[in-house]
């Protein structure tokens, strides 16, 4: 659906930001993009939604090269949305409803349809409790949910999340992960960037590793995170489930539940 072919992007000062990037978002429904700060994750996201025009190479959407005119970008962005790290930079209304409806109104929907769509999203994301509060009284986690709602309302097929867990406490993080799982269950695709390797390891079904603007590795998480070479090169840490696999001779659990089940079986046995 969305992929890149030999994508190259240079900053204005000529420095290379992205070099020969080939990624294909068909490889999974929970795709992770990992890499240190400055590896090029955000630049890649912005290229994928057509905001940055590559210097070389293409972004392919539904088997067609994307064009950088208003109409085709508009079509792209109906299907591909992005949730930025700082909610305050993507909420423009002090009224939650208006903000969620913003993207829909830009597309010229009828108010009636908008209301229906927004209500569904408000329900889905559990926003009802605070939907009448002015935005500046919302907590960081609540604002993030409003920002996500604004993107979900557009009924995008692919949603990018830039550091979705940044600044969230453990319980809000769980909440966010739940929300993202629900989105995938609705048949949508999520693409996340994060510094939290435990989260990436458990959440994602396919991972791209970026380092200095290049994809240095890709594959399913268990493959990526067992490759010490990749982790060292990109300055990443092993998720703890991988650590106990390697150091304690445990099986490689995909997630915590597997570990708990394993223990139970062991006790039974």
């Amino acid at each position, binding site marked *: 659906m969305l992929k890149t072919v030999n994508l190259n992007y240079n900053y204005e000062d000529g420095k290379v930001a992205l070099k020969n990037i080939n990624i294909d978002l068909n490889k999974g429904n929970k795709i992770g993009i990992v890499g240190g700060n400055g590896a090029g994750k955000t630049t890649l996201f912005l290229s994928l939604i057509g905001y940055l025009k590559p210097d070389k190479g293409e972004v392919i959407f539904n088997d067609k090269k994307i064009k950088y005119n208003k109409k085709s970008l508009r079509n792209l962005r109906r299907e591909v949305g992005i949730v930025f790290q700082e909610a305050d930079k993507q909420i*423009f209304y002090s009224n939650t409803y208006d903000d969620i409806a913003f993207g829909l109104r830009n597309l010229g929907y009828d108010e009636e349809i908008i209301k229906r769509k927004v209500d569904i999203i408000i329900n889905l994301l559990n926003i009802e409790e605070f939907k*009448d*509060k*002015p935005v500046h*009284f919302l907590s960081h986690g609540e604002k993030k949910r409003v920002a996500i709602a604004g993107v979900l309302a557009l009924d995008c097929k692919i949603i990018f999340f830039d550091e979705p867990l940044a600044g969230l406490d453990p319980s809000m993080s769980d909440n966010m992960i739940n929300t993202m799982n629900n989105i995938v269950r609705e048949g949508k695709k999520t693409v996340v960037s994060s510094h939290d390797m435990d989260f990436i390891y458990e959440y994602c079904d396919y991972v791209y590793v970026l380092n200095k603007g290049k994809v240095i590795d890709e594959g399913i998480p268990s493959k990526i995170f067992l490759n010490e070479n990749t982790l060292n090169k990109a300055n990443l840490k092993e998720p703890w489930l991988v650590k106990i696999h390697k150091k304690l001779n445990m099986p490689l659990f995909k997630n915590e539940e597997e570990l708990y089940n394993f223990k139970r079986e062991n006790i039974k046995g």
Partner: protein
Amino acid sequence: MKKKYLVLIGLVLMFMPRYANAMHIMEGYLSPFWAGFWTIVSLPFVIVGFRKISKIVKENGNKKILIALMGAFVFVLSALKLPSITGSSSHPTGVGLGAIVLGPVTMSVIGMIVLLFQALLLAHGGITTLGANTFSMGIVGPFVAFGIYKLSEKIGWKKEVSIFLAASLGNLATYTVTSFQLAVAHAGASEGVMQLLVKFLSIFAITQIPLAIAEGILSVIVYNLISQY
């Protein structure tokens, strides 16, 4: 809901200058006649400014964000305490810098919006006195600041001098107009306009002249820092 408004007030009280040298005419200080009069006087300027802004945002819709950010900036500036020689503290108006950057006509609209929020959020000025305050802070102040800036640029003075004069005299002009507005509104049989005006000017001068100087100095510092960047 009410609880939430309290948070807002908390925020406001936190920023509220401990000693307010109010520049704006308070709610209730002008009779309906004068409130209406100054609204009508301000209107043409605001309309011209509005037309100009309409043209700007028609060319580039993103400028709406920029203009609103500027408005918010002028607002937070006015919520800031400014060190002043008299020992009390008060706020800068931001009128000088704003006028130099955006032009005086645009400032009239931004000034009006800022004044509206100062009245609503800081209880500073008032809704019925919005017209009068727009005239002094949104129109006369910016025009004086801008005029002085252009003039001293033409004479060939140093940029720092131009900015200092523009910001501080813009500030002074605002308070002079405020005094005049109060004087004409309250002149009666016992005291003439001139008598009242002299009294207002001399009382506000004690607080306002050091403040105008402070704003001038601050504007120069900000200008220097930004041009270094």
